[in-house]
Protein backbone atom coordinates (compact mmCIF):
# COMPACT_ATOMS: atom_id res chain seq x y z
CA UNK A 1 0.00 0.00 0.00
CA UNK A 2 1.61 3.24 -1.14
CA UNK A 3 1.70 6.11 1.33
CA UNK A 4 0.98 9.53 -0.09
CA UNK A 5 3.33 12.37 0.87
CA UNK A 6 0.50 14.19 2.65
CA UNK A 7 -0.19 11.11 4.77
CA UNK A 8 3.53 10.70 5.50
CA UNK A 9 3.80 14.36 6.54
CA UNK A 10 0.74 14.04 8.78
CA UNK A 11 2.16 10.87 10.34
CA UNK A 12 5.47 12.63 11.01
CA UNK A 13 3.65 15.53 12.65
CA UNK A 14 1.73 13.11 14.88
CA UNK A 15 4.96 11.32 15.77
CA UNK A 16 6.70 14.58 16.63
CA UNK A 17 3.78 15.71 18.77
CA UNK A 18 3.60 12.38 20.62
CA UNK A 19 7.38 12.34 21.23
CA UNK A 20 7.44 15.91 22.48
CA UNK A 21 4.41 15.41 24.73
CA UNK A 22 5.82 12.18 26.15
CA UNK A 23 9.22 13.77 26.81
CA UNK A 24 7.64 16.74 28.60
CA UNK A 25 5.40 14.49 30.72
CA UNK A 26 8.42 12.33 31.60
CA UNK A 27 10.38 15.42 32.59
CA UNK A 28 7.52 16.65 34.78
CA UNK A 29 7.14 13.24 36.38
CA UNK A 30 10.81 12.92 37.30
CA UNK A 31 11.55 16.51 38.32
CA UNK A 32 8.34 17.82 39.89
CA UNK A 33 8.70 15.96 43.24
CA UNK A 34 12.23 17.34 43.57
CA UNK A 35 11.11 20.87 42.68
CA UNK A 36 8.29 20.70 45.23
CA UNK A 37 10.68 19.35 47.87
CA UNK A 38 13.27 22.07 47.35
CA UNK A 39 10.56 24.71 47.13
CA UNK A 40 9.35 23.67 50.57
CA UNK A 41 12.93 23.73 51.88
CA UNK A 42 13.49 27.20 50.48
CA UNK A 43 10.24 28.42 52.05
CA UNK A 44 11.34 27.02 55.40
CA UNK A 45 14.88 28.36 55.12
CA UNK A 46 13.99 31.83 53.88
CA UNK A 47 11.08 31.99 56.32
CA UNK A 48 13.41 31.45 59.26
CA UNK A 49 16.01 33.80 57.77
CA UNK A 50 13.39 36.51 57.31
CA UNK A 51 12.65 36.66 61.01
CA UNK A 52 16.17 35.95 62.24
CA UNK A 53 18.92 37.49 60.16
CA UNK A 54 21.56 35.33 61.84
CA UNK A 55 19.75 32.10 61.09
CA UNK A 56 21.91 31.18 58.07
CA UNK A 57 22.95 28.03 59.92
CA UNK A 58 19.46 26.61 59.35
CA UNK A 59 20.58 25.93 55.79
CA UNK A 60 23.29 23.60 57.06
CA UNK A 61 20.51 21.38 58.36
CA UNK A 62 17.95 21.87 55.61
CA UNK A 63 20.26 21.11 52.67
CA UNK A 64 21.31 17.63 53.93
CA UNK A 65 17.65 16.90 54.66
CA UNK A 66 16.77 17.96 51.13
CA UNK A 67 19.52 15.83 49.62
CA UNK A 68 18.41 12.79 51.65
CA UNK A 69 14.78 13.32 50.73
CA UNK A 70 15.72 13.66 47.06
CA UNK A 71 17.47 10.31 47.28
CA UNK A 72 14.36 8.80 48.82
CA UNK A 73 12.17 10.24 46.08
CA UNK A 74 14.53 8.95 43.42
CA UNK A 75 14.45 5.45 44.91
CA UNK A 76 10.67 5.48 44.66
CA UNK A 77 10.86 6.58 41.04
CA UNK A 78 13.41 3.93 40.10
CA UNK A 79 10.89 1.25 41.00
CA UNK A 80 9.10 2.11 37.78
CA UNK A 81 12.23 2.21 35.68
CA UNK A 82 15.30 0.10 35.26
CA UNK A 83 17.75 2.81 36.10
CA UNK A 84 18.10 5.29 38.88
CA UNK A 85 20.51 8.13 39.31
CA UNK A 86 22.14 6.82 42.49
CA UNK A 87 25.67 8.15 43.01
CA UNK A 88 25.48 10.23 39.85
CA UNK A 89 22.66 12.18 41.50
CA UNK A 90 24.53 12.50 44.76
CA UNK A 91 27.63 13.77 42.98
CA UNK A 92 25.55 16.26 40.99
CA UNK A 93 23.88 17.60 44.11
CA UNK A 94 27.18 17.96 45.95
CA UNK A 95 28.73 19.72 42.95
CA UNK A 96 25.77 22.11 42.75
CA UNK A 97 26.01 22.84 46.48
CA UNK A 98 29.76 23.49 46.24
CA UNK A 99 29.19 25.67 43.18
CA UNK A 100 26.67 27.82 45.02
CA UNK A 101 28.97 28.04 48.06
CA UNK A 102 31.92 29.05 45.86
CA UNK A 103 29.88 31.65 43.97
CA UNK A 104 28.62 33.26 47.16
CA UNK A 105 32.08 33.22 48.70
CA UNK A 106 33.61 35.00 45.71
CA UNK A 107 30.70 37.07 44.41
CA UNK A 108 29.07 37.97 47.67
CA UNK A 109 26.11 40.17 46.66
CA UNK A 110 25.96 43.50 48.43
CA UNK A 111 22.96 45.11 46.78
CA UNK A 112 19.41 44.24 45.82
CA UNK A 113 20.24 44.29 42.12
CA UNK A 114 23.14 41.89 42.62
CA UNK A 115 20.92 39.47 44.52
CA UNK A 116 18.41 39.52 41.71
CA UNK A 117 21.14 38.95 39.12
CA UNK A 118 22.57 36.10 41.17
CA UNK A 119 19.19 34.37 41.39
CA UNK A 120 18.74 34.67 37.65
CA UNK A 121 22.30 33.43 37.07
CA UNK A 122 21.69 30.33 39.19
CA UNK A 123 18.38 29.57 37.58
CA UNK A 124 19.78 29.94 34.05
CA UNK A 125 22.75 27.76 34.98
CA UNK A 126 20.41 25.12 36.36
CA UNK A 127 18.14 25.09 33.32
CA UNK A 128 21.04 24.98 30.89
CA UNK A 129 22.56 22.12 32.88
CA UNK A 130 19.37 20.14 33.22
CA UNK A 131 18.07 20.94 29.71
CA UNK A 132 14.72 19.46 30.48
CA UNK A 133 11.44 20.73 29.17
CA UNK A 134 9.97 21.16 32.62
CA UNK A 135 12.80 23.38 33.79
CA UNK A 136 12.64 25.53 30.66
CA UNK A 137 8.88 25.98 30.97
CA UNK A 138 9.29 26.90 34.63
CA UNK A 139 12.09 29.33 33.73
CA UNK A 140 9.94 31.08 31.13
CA UNK A 141 7.26 31.50 33.78
CA UNK A 142 9.72 32.65 36.45
CA UNK A 143 11.60 34.94 34.07
CA UNK A 144 8.46 36.89 33.38
CA UNK A 145 7.87 37.21 37.13
CA UNK A 146 11.42 38.08 38.22
CA UNK A 147 11.29 41.27 36.20
CA UNK A 148 8.29 42.37 38.26
CA UNK A 149 9.79 41.33 41.60
CA UNK A 150 8.65 43.89 44.14
CA UNK A 151 11.28 45.74 46.19
CA UNK A 152 10.05 44.02 49.37
CA UNK A 153 10.86 40.60 47.94
CA UNK A 154 14.26 41.80 46.82
CA UNK A 155 14.83 43.09 50.35
CA UNK A 156 13.96 39.69 51.80
CA UNK A 157 16.44 38.02 49.48
CA UNK A 158 19.09 40.60 50.40
CA UNK A 159 18.60 39.98 54.11
CA UNK A 160 18.76 36.25 53.76
CA UNK A 161 21.63 36.09 51.27
CA UNK A 162 23.77 39.08 52.06
CA UNK A 163 23.59 39.25 55.84
CA UNK A 164 24.05 35.56 56.36
CA UNK A 165 26.96 35.11 54.01
CA UNK A 166 28.58 38.36 55.06
CA UNK A 167 28.61 37.10 58.62
CA UNK A 168 30.03 33.82 57.44
CA UNK A 169 32.77 35.68 55.62
CA UNK A 170 33.47 37.87 58.68
CA UNK A 171 33.85 34.82 60.88
CA UNK A 172 36.27 33.30 58.45
Amino acid at each position, binding site marked *: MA*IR*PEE*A*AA*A*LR*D*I*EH*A*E*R*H*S*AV*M*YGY*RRTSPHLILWGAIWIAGYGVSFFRLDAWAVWLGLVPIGIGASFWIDRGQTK*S*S*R*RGFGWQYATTVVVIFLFIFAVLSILNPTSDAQVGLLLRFWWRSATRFLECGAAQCAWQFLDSRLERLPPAAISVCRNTFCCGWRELGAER
Partner: protein
Amino acid sequence: MAALKALPAREQIEFMRLKATLGMTDGNLGAHIVTLERAGYLEIEKSFVGKKPCTRVRLTKPGRRAFEQYVSFLRDIVDQE
Protein backbone atom coordinates in the same frame (compact mmCIF):
# COMPACT_ATOMS: atom_id res chain seq x y z
CA MET B 1 5.90 3.88 19.83
CA ALA B 2 6.71 7.57 19.45
CA ALA B 3 5.69 8.12 23.07
CA LEU B 4 7.97 5.30 24.22
CA LYS B 5 10.88 6.38 22.05
CA ALA B 6 10.90 9.76 23.81
CA LEU B 7 11.81 8.01 27.06
CA PRO B 8 15.43 7.19 27.95
CA ALA B 9 16.72 3.77 26.93
CA ARG B 10 15.49 0.90 29.15
CA GLU B 11 12.97 3.22 30.79
CA GLN B 12 9.58 1.72 31.53
CA ILE B 13 6.27 3.49 31.61
CA GLU B 14 3.08 2.37 33.27
CA PHE B 15 0.12 1.44 31.10
CA MET B 16 -2.12 4.04 32.74
CA ARG B 17 0.43 6.83 32.21
CA LEU B 18 0.88 5.82 28.58
CA LYS B 19 -2.89 5.82 28.13
CA ALA B 20 -3.14 9.31 29.63
CA THR B 21 -0.26 10.60 27.50
CA LEU B 22 -1.73 9.26 24.26
CA GLY B 23 -5.38 9.86 25.12
CA MET B 24 -6.40 6.34 24.08
CA THR B 25 -8.90 3.90 25.52
CA ASP B 26 -7.86 0.78 27.43
CA GLY B 27 -8.92 -1.61 24.67
CA ASN B 28 -7.34 0.39 21.85
CA LEU B 29 -4.00 0.81 23.58
CA GLY B 30 -4.03 -2.78 24.82
CA ALA B 31 -4.51 -4.10 21.29
CA HIS B 32 -1.65 -1.98 19.98
CA ILE B 33 0.65 -3.09 22.78
CA VAL B 34 -0.10 -6.77 22.29
CA THR B 35 0.55 -6.52 18.56
CA LEU B 36 3.84 -4.72 19.09
CA GLU B 37 4.90 -7.22 21.75
CA ARG B 38 4.27 -10.11 19.37
CA ALA B 39 6.52 -8.38 16.86
CA GLY B 40 9.23 -8.07 19.52
CA TYR B 41 9.12 -4.28 19.57
CA LEU B 42 7.79 -3.92 23.10
CA GLU B 43 8.44 -5.65 26.39
CA ILE B 44 5.57 -5.92 28.86
CA GLU B 45 6.12 -6.45 32.56
CA LYS B 46 3.17 -7.23 34.81
CA SER B 47 3.43 -6.84 38.56
CA PHE B 48 1.38 -5.94 41.58
CA VAL B 49 1.49 -2.76 43.64
CA GLY B 50 -0.13 -3.98 46.79
CA LYS B 51 -3.17 -5.77 45.43
CA LYS B 52 -3.49 -3.64 42.29
CA PRO B 53 -2.10 -5.04 39.04
CA CYS B 54 0.44 -2.81 37.35
CA THR B 55 1.52 -3.19 33.73
CA ARG B 56 4.72 -1.53 32.54
CA VAL B 57 5.82 -1.21 28.95
CA ARG B 58 9.29 -0.73 27.54
CA LEU B 59 10.56 -0.24 24.00
CA THR B 60 13.08 -2.91 22.99
CA LYS B 61 16.19 -2.29 20.90
CA PRO B 62 14.66 -3.92 17.79
CA GLY B 63 11.58 -1.81 18.39
CA ARG B 64 13.62 1.37 18.63
CA ARG B 65 15.46 0.50 15.43
CA ALA B 66 12.25 -0.42 13.61
CA PHE B 67 10.65 2.85 14.66
CA GLU B 68 13.65 4.88 13.48
CA GLN B 69 13.54 3.05 10.14
CA TYR B 70 9.83 3.81 9.85
CA VAL B 71 10.41 7.52 10.54
CA SER B 72 13.26 7.56 8.02
CA PHE B 73 10.95 5.89 5.47
CA LEU B 74 8.29 8.55 6.02
CA ARG B 75 10.85 11.34 5.71
CA ASP B 76 12.07 9.91 2.42
CA ILE B 77 8.52 9.99 1.07
CA VAL B 78 8.09 13.60 2.16
CA ASP B 79 11.52 14.61 0.78
CA GLN B 80 10.83 12.98 -2.59
CA GLU B 81 7.87 15.29 -3.03
